[in-house]
């Protein structure tokens, strides 16, 4: 699988927010609710990862965990790519 780096996923996340006229903070601990990153944005990010790797992500595999910060999103998508 053509795995994306954490930095690359961060770039894509930044793009998702930029399209909404918002900015992704540098801090991985930033709270998703505070930056307005919602389920629509999360789903869009997943599609962008799929488009960049050319492979579908299997969301059934790990079960969705609690995702509250920017770091959680990046961790989750990194893990998902390795399933």
């Amino acid at each position: 699988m053509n795995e994306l780096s954490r930095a690359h996923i961060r770039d894509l996340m930044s793009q998702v927010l930029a399209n909404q006229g918002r900015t992704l903070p540098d801090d991985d601990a930033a709270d998703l609710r505070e930056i307005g990153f919602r389920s629509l944005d999360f789903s869009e990010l997943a599609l962008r990862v799929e488009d960049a790797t050319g492979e579908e992500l299997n969301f059934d595999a790990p079960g969705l965990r609690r995702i509250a910060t920017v770091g959680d999103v990046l961790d989750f998508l990194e893990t998902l790519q390795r399933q």
Partner: protein
Amino acid sequence: MTTGTRAGLDNRIVVGGHVSTWRELPEPVLPSPAAVLTARPADALAAARHHAGHGTELLLASAGRVDQAMRDELREAGFTVIGPEPDGGHAAPPVRARPAEPGRLWLLTSGSTGRPKRVGHTLESLTTVRGVQPARTWLCPYAPGTYAWWQVVTLSLTQPDQHLVVVDADELDEWPALAAAHRVDAASGTPTFWRRTLHRDGAALARVPLRQLTLGGEPVDQAVLDQLRELFPAARISWIYASSEVGASIVVHDGRAGFPVEWLDRRMPGRPTLSVDGEELVITSPHHGAGLDGPVRTGDRVQVVDGRVLITGRLDSDEINVGGSKVSAGLVRGVLAAHPRLAWARVTGRRAPLLGRMVVAEVVPTTSDDAPDEAELVRWCADRLPDHAVPRRIRLLPEIPVKETLKSDV
């Protein structure tokens, strides 16, 4: 000649650059029933005229729409299958011969659900324009044998002063030049056909002296109507809802998308009755295909917006469920199509985590050097649609895709 089909015999026909009249077309020798599969528009017109004169049972289709399995099916159903060779000499006899049904015309539907299916008509049931018409020279860009093709052809066959300029599939991109040369002043096409023409060469289109523009065969959005109105301010611009199943059932001339909500459930003798069941358009029509009496569920989805009933797309593909919220692909498409720097849009649902599906789009910019980027289009939609309906992945295509039916599966 069958009653009602004489009136147009001296109308002018331009096909393959050659000018003649219906009367001057060569007379083919056709068995009955016959399935004529042709790649040449002139052969299709000759077969139509032959049917009008002799009433032989006929199925007419362009060769590209009929595969070997369909040919075998037609021979099983008693047809002699002719073509696609230009001389018509390659005739495959029926597997089981049967008596012909006089006056019967068969259409192959577009087959949006899979294989094309046969719908029975007559020249009478396909002729929906009966009142006296102003003299016109019509463009016919449709594939032979389709419902839309028969609409233009029956008009020219049955009414005086309704001339015809036929566009071959390989001339389609250059039709405005052909139409201007032959003084075409009326043209009928799908929204995709019009968008593609506006996109390729709006200046060439503006040189065609059009007084009547008709759109049909696909959902018609306000943007394409407005663009055509800008180019042809004095012309009559109409959209028609018609299909081989229910005939021409809705005709709207006010230059607006959709039809007035007051037209629903209005019963008038000899006119179709339009109804909505759930979100589906239901039509009871005097122009039904054979065996389709009573209300026909069209499979088309409607939404009432500001007093207009908008036909947004097919029920099985128009609705996108985004995390439990329903989105009409047609309405989102209308928003994108209204962007001043977009020529075309297709909106679909794509599998996505958390939400089940997300709205995504493909678009064609008006000009490649001034194409809007994804962020601009997302903002455009976000200003006009609820969050869950905003397309999140928007792909730019260089050219409007089009099929032989002049539709683009939007």
